[in-house]
């Protein structure tokens, strides 16, 4: 577990200190820090629970990438949409999904945000506009275009933010979707969480151009941001959302970040594809949480005591989520066949495994 006091002090050293804090209120900045700490503690708890078998399957942590979640989701309204890939826990939290529901989903319980049917990769909460949690690389990108299409069709004042990993820009679906978003001016903000790797493959090995340039030629304005810097990210996103809401059509951001952990809980943190040194130096110098913390310290917006209190509070939220998940019931047997179809028709048979007729389950 990362301890706030031991998070690197070097981070942000020699940085602009006060610079860049303008335009943000002190309380807002402290709120940012607390929010990102919550994401970090949540993921650490998930990591712990996975290690003791409470969580199964694939579990992809967002540690190191917290400013992407906060920076791109924080400025949204409640009724805006967010759609993403499988690295989705903190993005769900950022969109306001109840931490208890997210943790219970990871535990595969009936009180989970998807009733235990989806698991870590498939967090959904339609009331919060959190549209998942998708497991096939790139598949959510056309879905985002579709949400944008529906917004425009119904003349709603909403935006859809679509996250994807850097590796997703190599899928055909990415290019097809961005083209449609551009020609129909769909209100979608496409965000590439560029953590430099897709599993064990460096982006530079599978793309002739940098991430930002991959949207060029599709007619979607492209931007770049250091997404370890929450303030720069937040500022850019507010600007882009304004353009999108004004009907200018889609925008695209290469959000530069870094994954501090292995690709999923089953993969090593470093190996032949990236060195231990590289990871250590990134963790030391580019932790979005310590970067903000140090800027707040330098500006005397934050004391050690306040930080500790903040950490206590978010840990309490996370502990409660884990307790809630632990005590939540497993889905009932009947749930197996529930939700396959939303309508069971009067005529005809829908299920063919014969198990209902066996009378066993």
């Amino acid at each position: 577990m990362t301890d706030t006091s031991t998070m690197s002090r070097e981070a942000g050293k020699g940085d602009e200190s006060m610079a860049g804090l303008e335009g943000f209120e002190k309380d807002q900045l402290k709120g940012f820090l607390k929010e990102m700490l919550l994401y970090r503690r949540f993921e650490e708890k998930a990591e712990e629970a996975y290690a003791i078998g409470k969580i199964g399957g694939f579990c992809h942590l967002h540690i190191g990438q917290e400013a992407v979640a906060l920076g791109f989701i924080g400025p949204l309204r409640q009724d805006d949409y967010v759609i993403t890939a499988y690295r989705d826990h903190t993005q769900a939290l950022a969109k306001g999904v109840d931490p208890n529901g997210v943790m219970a989903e990871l535990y595969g319980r009936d009180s989970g945000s998807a009733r235990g049917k989806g698991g870590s990769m498939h967090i959904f909460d339609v009331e919060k506009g959190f549209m998942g949690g998708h497991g096939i690389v790139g598949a959510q990108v056309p879905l985002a275009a579709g949400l944008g299409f529906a917004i425009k069709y119904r003349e709603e004042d909403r935006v859809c933010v679509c996250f994807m990993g850097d590796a997703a820009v190599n899928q055909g679906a990415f290019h097809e979707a961005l083209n449609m978003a551009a020609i129909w001016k769909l209100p979608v903000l496409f965000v590439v969480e560029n953590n430099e790797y897709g599993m064990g493959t460096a982006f530079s090995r599978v793309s002739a151009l940098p991430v930002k340039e991959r949207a060029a030629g599709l007619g979607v304005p492209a931007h770049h941001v250091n997404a370890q810097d929450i303030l720069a990210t937040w500022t850019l996103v507010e600007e882009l959302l304004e353009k999108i809401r004004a009907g200018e059509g889609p925008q695209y951001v290469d959000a530069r970040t870094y994954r501090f952990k292995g690709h999923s809980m089953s993969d090593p943190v470093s190996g032949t594809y990236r060195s231990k040194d590289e990871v250590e130096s990134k963790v030391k110098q580019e932790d979005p949480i310590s970067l903000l913390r140090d800027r707040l310290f330098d500006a005397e917006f934050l004391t050690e005591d306040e930080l500790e209190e903040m950490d206590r509070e978010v840990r309490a939220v996370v502990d409660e989520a884990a307790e809630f998940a632990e005590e939540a019931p497993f889905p009932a047997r009947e749930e197996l066949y529930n939700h396959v179809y939303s309508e069971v028709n009067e005529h005809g048979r829908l299920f063919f495994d014969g198990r209902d007729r066996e009378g066993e389950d």
Partner: protein
Amino acid sequence: MQTITYREALNQALDEEMERDDTVFLMGEEVAEYDGAYKVSKGLLEKFGDRRVVDSPIAELGFAGLGVGAAMGGLRPVIEFMTFNFSILALDQVINSAAKTFYMTGGQIPVPMVFRGPTGAALQLSAQHSQACETWYVHAPGIKLVTPGTPADAKGLLKAAIRDNDPVAFMEGELLYNVKGEVPDVDDGDFVIPLGKADVKREGSDVSIITHGKMVHVALQAAKKLEKDGVDAEVLDLRSLRPLDVEAILATVHKTNRVVYLEEGWPYAGIGAQIAATIQEEAFDYLDAPILRVTQADVPMPYAKNLEQMAKPDADRVVRACNRVLYRNGSAD
């Protein structure tokens, strides 16, 4: 004989075929520098270099299609899907290009290639990552389908698949990679198992459990349970689903007169549906009971541990089905 894992068996097959034929190359996500997501291609980059062991972008439709084109251009591609779940994205190239080209060109252009990777569920990977993909592939004429369940079958069949002049889908199992078994020694010469030959994995006389792929192990477990109960089950492993060893199927039906088909996938238009149709067409008079199928529950795979367990086919279900076709109450009930 050597005792090796299923993973090592596949690795040997790739190694030997790449050694034997320079037109064979391996392409897919993480196959080179990472040694494969499941380490099947371990050491091959080092041995054959990046001309022949190629890391692809995550672009299944693209690199599957590239494989088809390379086969049209005279190579023998082995295209690895990290799992067959992701190949659903590539199905257009598999079905519209790979499977049909030889026919559409009036026999001018063969497509000798292999699509391989794991199919089926592992543990709690949820709906999009836990699918048995056999039916998608076997449905289209023009492509062959092989599903080895043991290390020896994995090695012998992969070598045959690479040498075959048609596109072959070769489906492995994530939970099989660590399974050990006996495989003929490398020094004992070329070990190739022809496509289209089923294998009796256990002889028996009372009931036939016919199956393929990873489910062979579940069938053998069920047979063991039945044995304790005085029932002698035969386990027939089809190994290839197309070409299908109909003779072996008829032989076991003639012998036991009762059939349970066990498969990992969904029942609707599943493999068992085809086998049942073939049996009733060609051996109706030999059947003493309707053919029963044991499959995954007819639902997308749920994540929750308890629901997943209920959804998967298991040995107890096979035992119950066998007892039903034998019209007996087993002690397992």
